[in-house]
């Protein structure tokens, strides 16, 4: 196989050979997936998983491995050109608590376990990549920074990625966020986002006769009704996701506190700002109407940003996906991709395989498509390395 390609067509011609190498390392990839997947890694508790990742990097012969003060883990494969570096990133945390049974089950055509798709598989791909590149005999022109990102999800608010990009000194040519699912995913733009938590508290001396008998639940219900009343435009695309609600402890105990977690997403920064203002009004209004204490805690914000669909990175990624018979699913991202783009790093998010039951105990990934996903990733990496994804002046 070639080491230096002249164009993406040459890389595409080598896809079968790259896939063959990926398949030959299936045991390594699956073993990494099982072992990483069985290490609990709730947001802010990723240390054990990152340590394992670093150990894997060392065993692959990477001499430059480290972790930073934010808990991120790195393995660096130096390139020939010190002015070019490619950042390959997978978030290390999962939505599952440490107390959850993290046993992974392997079957003939699938693997299941909590967090196996989001994002143990992404991390396992990073752990396997040095061995794969070694097997393929590729020596990259650019340096390759493999990063297991800590503190990404929920209240983590991409802290690990932001910390790295705020403090990194090495020039980064492009970035790829690796997500376990879904194969065919191609994100090159991030939506505007506001993630928040509404807390409704009713005082102990609450007037139950006058206000009704469901306490904080009634108040949060009023908040939900008001949020549903916010007019949302069809264009630019905008949505409000009511993600979770917590209140009450039993059949006959009037709850004094209720929490609603939600996320606003929009292609327009202006609309996100407008909705944020509407939400503030709703909080004040419900407070004055019910006598309850209603507060809004904004946990995370993102500005919409992204590459153009005609950006060479997007274009070449689409060409490679098409050569692998993958139909790209273009979805805006609100994860690490947005941080990279905000920091001026051209980046995309790719999925590795097909999966289902996301964020459930039996979160499942399919085995066979993994090798296509891995092939796609290596090919895009080679395209970036060859300079075929650089924007021309």
């Amino acid at each position: 196989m070639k080491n230096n390609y002249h164009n993406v067509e040459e890389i595409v011609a080598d896809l079968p050979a790259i896939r063959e190498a990926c398949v030959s390392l299936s045991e390594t990839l699956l073993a990494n997936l099982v072992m990483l997947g069985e290490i609990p890694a709730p947001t802010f508790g990723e240390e054990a998983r990152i340590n394992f990742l670093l150990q894997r990097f060392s065993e692959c012969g990477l001499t430059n491995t480290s972790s930073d003060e934010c808990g991120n883990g790195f393995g660096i494969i130096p390139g020939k050109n010190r002015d070019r570096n490619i950042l390959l990133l997978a978030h290390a945390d999962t939505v599952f608590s440490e107390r959850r049974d993290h046993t992974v089950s392997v079957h003939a055509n699938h693997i299941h376990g909590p967090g196996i798709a989001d994002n143990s598989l992404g991390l396992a791909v990073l752990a396997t990549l040095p061995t794969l590149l070694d097997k393929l005999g590729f020596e990259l022109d650019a340096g390759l920074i493999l990063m297991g990102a800590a503190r990404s999800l929920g209240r983590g608010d991409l802290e690990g990625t932001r910390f790295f990009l705020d403090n990194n000194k090495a020039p980064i040519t492009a970035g790829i966020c690796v997500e376990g699912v879904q194969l065919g995913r191609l994100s090159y733009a991030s939506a505007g986002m506001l993630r928040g938590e509404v807390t409704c508290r009713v005082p102990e001396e609450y007037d139950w006769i006058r206000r009704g008998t469901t306490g904080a639940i009634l108040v949060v219900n009023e908040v939900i009704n008001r949020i549903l009343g916010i007019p949302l435009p069809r264009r630019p695309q905008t949505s409000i996701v009511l993600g979770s609600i917590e209140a009450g402890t039993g059949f006959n105990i009037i709850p004094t506190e209720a929490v609603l977690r939600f996320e606003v997403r929009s292609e327009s920064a202006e609309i996100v700002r407008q909705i944020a203002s509407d939400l503030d009004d709703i909080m004040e209004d419900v407070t004055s109407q019910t006598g309850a204490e209603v507060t809004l805690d904004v946990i995370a914000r993102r500005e919409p940003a992204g590459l153009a669909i005609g950006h060479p990175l997007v274009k070449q990624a689409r060409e490679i996906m098409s050569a692998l018979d993958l139909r790209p699913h273009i979805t805006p991202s609100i994860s690490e991709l947005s941080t990279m783009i905000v920091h001026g790093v051209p980046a995309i998010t790719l999925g590795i395989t097909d999966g289902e039951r996301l964020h459930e105990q039996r979160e499942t990934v399919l085995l066979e498509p993994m090798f296509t996903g891995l092939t796609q990733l290596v090919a895009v990496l080679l395209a970036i390395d060859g300079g075929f994804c650089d924007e021309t002046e």
Partner: protein
Amino acid sequence: MKLNKWISQNTFHHGQFWDLRQLVEEKEKQGLTISLCLPTLNEAKTIGKEIILFKSELMDRYPLIDEIAVIDSGSIDDTREIAAAFGADVYLSADILPQYGEKKGKGENLWKAVYQLKGDIICYVDADIANIHPRFAYGLIAPLLYHPEMKYIKAFYDRPLAFSQGVRPSGGGRVTEILVRPLFSLFYPELTGLIQPLSGEYAVRREVLEEIPFPIGYGVETSHILDVYRKWGMGAFGQTDLDQRVHRNQATLSLGKMAFGILRTFLARSQAKGMTIDMEQVSSIMRQFQAHNDKYEQIEFEIVEEERPPMITIPEYREKFGR
């Protein structure tokens, strides 16, 4: 050997053997081959994961193990297909030495593995371990590589119940504590140094495996311990703490049958040692109760601990291995 001295010298923790590179070097220096045997019966849920981890970590990454073999008792689920798909050598127990007949039991698979597998060391690991990890093999093999005088390394699990969810806190070692340890305390006090004599994971030198008989049922671990102790003494044993093992929990009635089989094996060995027990007079029927509404009835299980002779007595084995 004083028991306390034996415990301090012959008890290990898998963490002592983390340096797999060094372990592989030691194996190569000694010119040994090592086989991993996974005896199975309907283990489709767990077998794939075991093979992936052992093959990736202990064959591809660190070439400690030379072969991984599944010896199957005739599973009716996909155990054999999954095992083969993930790259193990798969054998149906009945196809090995078919001229000696087919018996049902884990011990049968372990015995036939001695003939089928090529390693100088054979490491047996049960196939139903949910939290499988490479330590389950290298933790047992390592003491044999570093201590030439040791021949039989048993696993024990210091924190078998530390798993927070899904496992009942009565999970491990009931038969050991209620039956085997009292028996050993009475008749073989030195053997009480073995923390979990019934654990299903052990690594053994071929020279030992070929010399001892194999009960095909519940008594295989107990008989091995008694036979190895009698022939090579306490110094032949080692034991390694593998931390935690999560597996299927057995019902008390099943453990009753296991205890019955072990007791029969123990009595037979004691008779061989010269104690006056007439095994002809000892019942092979285990009786347990079940209730139909308000009526109680006894159910009877015949538990006969058949034995396979030492492999070295089998002509085909002597021919295959040049003994």
